[in-house]
């Protein structure tokens, strides 16, 4: 009679919905508050500039630049996207801009943003550095309309 109650717990998430489930712990690296800051910074800078800012945090292997460029090519819309690849274990940050994004974000501007980010990283503030770096990059890139006018 009690067999009905012995049902195994099962996961009803499909391949598509499983990554979206809220009961998985996404805050293993960053707290939810920090994740919200990162999310807002990425989303707002992408919407303001029309570029696509993505952020990779993890190991970049021995050849960090090549790995970062591979990752950049792997993401969607590589021409218009900007990848911030941070490897905290190696203390390296690589900023990769696509061909179209590089016209609006020259390497000097990226270097300046990287400098401010490394300052924060050296103080142990990963999220604050990333948010400020994204702000600098999006300020430099400006709106897509004003870029098109010239």
């Amino acid at each position, binding site marked *: 009679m009690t067999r009905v109650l012995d049902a195994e717990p099962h996961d009803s*998430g*499909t*391949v*598509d*919905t499983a*990554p*979206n489930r809220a009961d998985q712990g*996404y*805050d*293993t*690296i*960053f*707290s*939810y508050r920090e*994740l919200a800051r990162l999310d807002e910074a*990425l*989303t707002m*800078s*992408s919407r303001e500039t029309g570029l*696509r*800012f*993505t952020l*990779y*945090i*993890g*190991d970049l292997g021995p050849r960090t630049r090549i790995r970062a*460029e*591979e*990752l950049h*090519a*792997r*993401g*969607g819309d*590589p*021409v218009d996207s900007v990848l911030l690849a941070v*490897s905290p*274990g190696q*203390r*390296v*940050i*690589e*900023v*990769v*801009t*696509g061909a*179209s*994004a*590089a016209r609006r*974000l020259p390497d000097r501007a*990226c*270097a300046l943003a*990287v*400098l401010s*980010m*490394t300052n924060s*990283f*050296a*103080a*142990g503030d*990963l999220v604050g550095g990333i948010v400020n770096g994204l702000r600098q990059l999006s300020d430099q890139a400006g709106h897509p309309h004003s870029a098109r006018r010239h």
Partner: protein
Amino acid sequence: MSVVETLLVFVVAPLAVYVFFWAMTYLPGGRKRPGIRYKPGQPWEHEPVWYEPQPENAPTHAAGEGDTQAVGSSLYGETAAIGSGHGSGHGASLDGHGSSAVGSSVIAGTRGATAVSAGTPVPSAGGPLGGARGTW
């Protein structure tokens, strides 16, 4: 007011307030902080994560035509194209399985890690790449 009362009011009560706030601040376990505290130079032993911006038009539309009809899969309808491998251009993920995740911009790290190491290097399309590099 006797001496004992004076001591209680003017010494013991303020001390109790101070001790209370000191304990709330410094005693361990008083404040649970999820997430890690990064210190420069310590090894980074987490799975790689890739955060991407939220797609512009994702989470607000109600379930309708073109959405999956799975009951209880989500509060919001999900575009049926996600599952068939040709998701919208916004949600590119590491394993090519469009994760235009409804309302979520976090990609699970384990899947990303395997996919990154599995693929072959992709040549950069559309011109030279720019950027900068920094160490700290």
